[in-house]
């Protein structure tokens, strides 16, 4: 099996390297890709949707149906991970480890015993605990807000620069994953509960589909954002631009929470107890 993969990789690589020379020059108007359909998008996008970035307009407006099902695929991936991996059996763990923060002593509680939760001196630790992860913890703590802000920026500026819902959602999810890796699983889950994650994931898909259905109710085609003009009190062109933003927010929510969902299911083995 490995040999077959190797042969395929080498052959594809040689083919690609051979084909490099034949590429048309960058932004060549006479190249085959830009003779048939793209001139329409290139000329009309700005006046029809007032979105400078053509790729965003094509993804979220002209080919909006496609993107909706891509989001659904991501959602389905999250749900699949949940159904396959999550274990709901309330089987008590064999032993739980606590750490006395003042002395650094570790306590092992066997057979479903319990340390009182209201004491501040005891913190729960993973079974395979790594002592004093101070540097990584602090730097992650400082970086997480900036990563989140960057993710939100990417979502909000999908119209003007590369990016959009998918990329921003992934970056937002990565910030929570960073929190889970640098601290531990329970800290991240304390900020982002499992139920919240699942709800946000469905909400994202619902926002997308709901925007489409709203357009349908207002008398135009499915996902034709020009219909939103009467609700948003703008002209149809600006409404299309705003509709794209709404859809991007939905995609971002769905992707972010799907990423967190998949990560927490995979890395904790479905127990939501302790992770990577």
């Amino acid at each position: 099996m490995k040999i077959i993969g190797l042969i395929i990789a080498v052959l594809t690589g040689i083919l690609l390297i051979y084909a490099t020379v034949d590429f048309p020059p960058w932004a060549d108007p006479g190249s085959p890709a830009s003779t048939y359909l793209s001139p329409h998008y290139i000329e009309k996008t700005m006046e029809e949707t007032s979105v400078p970035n053509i790729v965003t307009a094509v993804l979220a407006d002209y080919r909006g149906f496609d993107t909706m099902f891509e989001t659904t695929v991501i959602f389905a991936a999250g749900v699949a991970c949940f159904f396959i991996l999550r274990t709901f059996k309330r089987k008590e763990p064999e032993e739980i480890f606590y750490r006395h923060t003042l002395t650094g002593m570790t306590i092992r509680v066997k057979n479903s015993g319990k340390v009182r939760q209201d004491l501040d001196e005891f913190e729960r630790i993973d079974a395979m605990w790594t002592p004093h992860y101070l540097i990584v913890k602090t730097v992650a703590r400082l970086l997480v807000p900036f990563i989140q802000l960057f993710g939100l920026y990417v979502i909000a500026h999908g119209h003007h620069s590369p990016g959009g819902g998918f990329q921003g959602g992934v970056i937002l999810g990565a910030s929570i994953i960073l929190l889970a890796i640098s601290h531990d699983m329970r800290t991240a889950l304390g900020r982002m509960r499992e139920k919240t994650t699942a709800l946000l994931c469905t909400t994202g898909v619902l926002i997308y589909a709901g925007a489409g259905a709203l357009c349908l109710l207002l008398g135009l085609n499915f996902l034709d954002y020009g219909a939103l003009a009467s609700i948003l009190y703008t002209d149809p062109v600006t409404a299309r631009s705003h509709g794209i933003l709404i859809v991007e927010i939905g995609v971002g929510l769905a992707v972010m929470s799907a990423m967190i969902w998949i990560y927490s299911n995979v890395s904790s083995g479905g127990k939501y107890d302790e992770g990577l």
Partner: protein
Amino acid sequence: MQKNAAPDQHKHTLDPSSEHTPRKRPIYPFLITFIIMFVTWILLSGKFDGFHLCLGIISCAIVAYFSGDLLFDSPRVKGLLGTWIRFVRYMPWLLYQIFIANLHLMYLTFHPRMMELIDPEIIKFKTKLKSDLALVTFANSITLTPGTITVDISTDGQFSVHAIDRHSGEGLPGEMEERIARAFGEE
């Protein structure tokens, strides 16, 4: 600590959410985080029309709500500005040190008989710095100064540092610790 507690309490142990009860948070970290985030947003965005500024305010509020207690873990606000100014004044010195030490490491790297010059060893020393941020700044400064990598900080402030040769490791902790202590007001 009690062993074999009543069976109705068991489910709290498994439920991860029960361990993090939300507390009432002070307002200052939220505000400062919001301001820092908004400056960063303007730097990132570069669009000053009302629509994008509104989006920025909403985003910054979300981030500040979600992670206001991450950026500042202590509610103490006094002296924050002074710390920042002193920290910024510490940076040029650090950059100069990094540059000097980088040249030394370049010399080692391109030396033909490099294997005879290097002599890796692990140095241990104790520091007097207390706060987390100061410790982390010190550790990262040590790591950035070539020739030395912080391997571990133990809980009582003992550093172990991997130094690539005698020359790199002999200056520790030295002046860097003094300057960081001054920057973070821990003299």
